[in-house]
């Protein structure tokens, strides 16, 4: 039986795939960044369709910000960010296409052939999900969450250290 959830899953799944494909099919780098934003927003909506409201909203907000920054970096770093010169910035295309198709076929094959066991029909209300996720973070997964926080701090320091201008250091 085809449910509303399945129809929405297929619609937004196809949207995520189409935007994901457009990322590598356009010669404009800015369009690539905004296509990736479209794909990530579609993934966030898929989370909402699968009733993971908190994760869906978080995904849309985080990726909206990250992809906007990515578009700015594209304009700063690319010789031809608008794609007016139709530059080709790809290599080993045939191997990449074969690798993509083989991996997709393998993963899809695993999805079809695995016995997934008992299917869960019901899920908690959004407020109850948030409460239980909070309990998970503050109890069993507290160390993992703390590690993620420290990792973000380390990543921030490492990013600044890598990106800082060498010329300024030399002057001192």
């Amino acid at each position, binding site marked *: 039986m085809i449910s509303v959830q399945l129809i929405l899953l297929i619609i937004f799944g196809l949207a995520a795939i189409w935007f994901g494909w457009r990322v590598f099919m356009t010669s404009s780098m800015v369009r*690539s960044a905004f296509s990736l934003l479209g794909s990530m927003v579609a993934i966030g909506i898929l989370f909402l369709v699968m*009733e*993971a409201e908190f994760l869906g909203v978080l995904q849309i907000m*985080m990726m909206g910000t990250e992809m906007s920054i990515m578009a700015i*970096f594209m304009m700063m*770093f*690319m010789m031809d960010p608008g794609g007016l010169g139709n530059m080709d910035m790809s290599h080993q295309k045939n191997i990449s296409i074969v690798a993509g198709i083989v*991996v997709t076929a393998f993963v899809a094959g695993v999805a079809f052939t695995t016995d997934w066991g008992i299917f869960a029909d019901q899920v908690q209300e959004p407020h109850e999900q948030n409460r239980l*996720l909070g309990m998970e973070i503050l109890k069993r997964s507290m160390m993992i*969450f703390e590690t993620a926080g420290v990792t973000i701090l380390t990543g921030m320091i490492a990013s600044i250290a890598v990106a800082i201008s060498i010329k300024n250091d030399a002057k001192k």
Partner: protein
Amino acid sequence: MELLIAALIIAAILFGIGLYGALSQTNLVMIMMGIELMLGAAMINLVAFWRYLHPEAFSLQMFVLIAMTVMALEGAVGFAMATHRFRTSGTVEMEESAELKG
């Protein structure tokens, strides 16, 4: 069960597209975009497993939060490397990055 299979197939196709992008592109930022797509596909799988198999196990949602952290960090460190690379060689084309070759 068809809901879980549909979500897994969508994620498999997205992963394949991301892999194609990460392998075929020569620009650092475009390679990062491919990796982001692959991580997005992994997150769809995690949410689908939580929703359709174990809605009581919130450690699966915790995994999604960790995957989001990895995505953000990959973006931050990748952009920092791109900035450094652009400052030193004026380009972020990876085909021109062969300094570490022996």
